[in-house]
């Protein structure tokens, strides 16, 4: 009986998670010949990924893009989270909830709305022209890498606010008062106490945003146009127009490795040390 229960407890996750991922991994060692998959092991897909002049640059560009998204999100989220912690009681959580509500809105609709804001007739161009910053509407913000950067940032800011807020909130008030009593200025207290103690939250935030950004296919597909080609789009095209599932699987393995590394780094530096007392 207990053996059966144990078997069941393992079977479900193993069959529907581990087996598909394992098959996917195995696929990356196959190849395609004239539209049919050849089930003979080869390292050709990985060799192609590292030697072909197309894939590695797109891979790096995508990583740089997603790191930029993470940095911009944190630059916006940190002051916001800090402001939240200066508020009292009920207001603090009410405002936090308010900043998280946009997460509930349909992802596809948000991308569509942002695209219309960034577009040639969009709000951003109108505002910039009215303010006199631009002479005429620009196509600089849509269907290119900038558009992907801006859209992902808008979509992912809440994922940066939450972990930073939590780490700031955990800093004991006594530490700040002690620092004040010992004659430190507000800036000194921030730089020596608050900032170092909130870095784990910043690391978690960076890891969240980066992983969500690099795994996203919908945003670059919708706002990237022709020039905004990211790794996710190349990967997806292997299962559509390019029809090379094994190569697509190999690209997925590369993506998975980056994601796992980002999660591990986030875990390593996201742990709170010293504030446990």
């Amino acid at each position, binding site marked *: 009986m207990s053996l059966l229960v144990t078997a069941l407890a393992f079977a479900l996750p193993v069959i529907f998670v581990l087996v598909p991922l394992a098959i996917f991994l195995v696929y990356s060692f196959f190849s395609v010949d004239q539209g049919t998959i050849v089930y003979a092991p080869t390292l050709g897909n990985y060799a192609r990924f590292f030697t072909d002049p197309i894939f590695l640059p797109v891979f790096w560009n995508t990583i740089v893009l997603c790191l930029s998204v993470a940095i911009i999100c944190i630059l916006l989220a940190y002051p916001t989270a800090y402001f939240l912690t200066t508020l009292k009681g009920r207001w603090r959580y009410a*405002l936090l909830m308010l900043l998280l509500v946009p997460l*509930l809105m349909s992802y596809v609709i948000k991308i569509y709305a942002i695209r219309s804001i960034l577009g040639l007739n969009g709000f951003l161009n109108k505002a910039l022209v009215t303010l006199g910053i631009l002479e005429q509407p620009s196509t600089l913000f849509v269907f290119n890498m900038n558009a992907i950067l801006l859209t992902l940032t808008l979509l992912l800011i809440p994922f940066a606010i939450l972990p930073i807020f939590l780490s700031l909130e955990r800093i004991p008030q006594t530490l*700040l008062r002690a620092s004040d009593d010992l004659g430190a200025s507000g800036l000194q207290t921030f730089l020596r106490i608050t900032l170092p103690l909130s870095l784990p939250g910043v690391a978690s935030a960076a890891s969240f945003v980066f992983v969500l950004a690099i795994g996203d296919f919908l945003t670059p597909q919708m706002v990237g146009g022709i020039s905004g080609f990211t790794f996710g789009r190349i990967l997806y095209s292997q299962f559509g127009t390019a029809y090379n599932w094994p190569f697509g*699987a190999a690209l997925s393995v590369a993506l998975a490795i980056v*994601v796992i590394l980002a999660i591990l780094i986030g875990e390593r530096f996201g742990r709170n040390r010293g504030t446990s007392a």
Partner: protein
Amino acid sequence: MSTLPRASTIFLAAITTLVAALLYSPLFVPIVSSFFPLSQGNVDWSSPTFSTYVSLAENHDILAALGTTLIVGLCTVVLSVVSGTLLALYYHGRRAGRSFLQFIIFLPFLMPPIISGLALLIFFREIGLERSLLTVVIGHTVFVLAIVYRTVLTRLQSMSRTLVEASYDLGATGWQTFWRVILPNLSSAMVGGAILAFALSFDETMITILVTGTQSTLPVRLWAMMRLGFSPDINALVALILMFTVLLCVLAARFLIPRQVATERS
């Protein structure tokens, strides 16, 4: 953080306002244009109308997609709550193999959905399972299982052992203890987990695009429509859905935050 100079408070408040404006701008656009006609990118404030809501009621295509999404969501909730709760019960207090199993359960949640979706797509093809709503439900269940499992396990771990011991002392059998003591204590966590699972399933797009057959859920339908541009009634739908999800989340928060904590904080 009590004595902040005035200038820095203003700076922080300004950034927060900017962030809030940025976050709400993509919500604002469809909601405003659900009530006011839009022409050439300019909002016509003079004539508010409910016509978008009326035409939504006649858009059978979208309503069918909404129906499909609800069916998928409900099936996903039932499957994930049952299996998530059973897994949590099984692994509560058991060390052997737990971290390995947790790792597997969390994989689809951590991996980019494009990878989970493609892996399932190939898996379904290998075992000869036609793409249909069944494959969509399996995909969603695998995706949300981690959330339900975690929610229920957290509640189990915070449950006092003395409750179970008292039940046994009073002569209850194992089953009686389960039905009368453990399950009632878990119920609010299960409801909270179910709401979260439903919300995630409702908006899941990438995995669904990959594993769905001919029927599409709402996000997939919207995704397909986006290439051509949306008709105005989509804005009405979006406004309604947002209202509904906010309501759901307030509910979820009520179930997930234990009552003592809620009263302590208020």
